[in-house]
């Protein structure tokens, strides 16, 4: 049962434009959300997170938006750079499950020059 869903397996964006990666979830007990970035042959790297008490968190070029009523979050990258090309995973933590994370299947982002 996939509780965190990333319905777009891939996304291609031109350098300098905005990249928007989407994530939906089904578990109403999720209270903390994270985005990870993964390059080939490396482990996932933490990128940005947001608590369920907020609707936006910004860190440099990266902004995460959370819409609790829609059970939807998105990651915006502005401006996109070729080095941002990677697989992005959305993850969520449930308040009743300790610190374990539930991951989506990932979205492969390609930023073209």
């Amino acid at each position, binding site marked *: 049962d996939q509780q965190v869903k990333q319905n777009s397996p891939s996304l291609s964006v031109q350098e300098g434009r905005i990249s928007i990666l989407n994530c939906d979830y089904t578990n109403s007990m999720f209270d903390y959300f*994270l985005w990870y970035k993964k390059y080939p042959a490396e482990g996932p790297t933490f990128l940005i997170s947001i608590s369920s008490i907020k609707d936006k968190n910004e860190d440099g070029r990266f902004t995460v938006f959370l819409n609790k009523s829609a059970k939807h979050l998105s990651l915006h990258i502005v401006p996109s750079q070729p080095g941002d090309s990677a697989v992005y995973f959305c*993850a969520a933590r449930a308040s009743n499950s300790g*610190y*374990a*994370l539930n991951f989506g*299947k990932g979205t492969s982002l390609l930023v073209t020059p």
Partner: protein
Amino acid sequence: EAGVAQSPRYKIIEKRQSVAFWCNPISGHATLYWYQQILGQGPKLLIQFQNNGVVDDSQLPKDRFSAERLKGVDSTLKIQPAKLEDSAVYLCASSGGSGTYEQYFGPGTRLTVT
């Protein structure tokens, strides 16, 4: 600060053989996780340790998988006997103090079972 270390990076074994993976977490991180990532999927939690105690092993196939974290630092994940469907990347992650949900991952061990 050194990151999460894992070894080996790659392993190829035949089905029914056994294999072990090692993880050394970030210094001072009390919580350690083992994840299995099958190609095209996100990481799936196998087991979570808090110091040297097991917090969650509900998704660990206990008939063939075992894990330990002696002395609350290093951890070993073992598969015996391996099946073809165990082919995956095994990721170790650790996390630090209270109120911190970010987990830091090692490079993973890619296991191929033939």
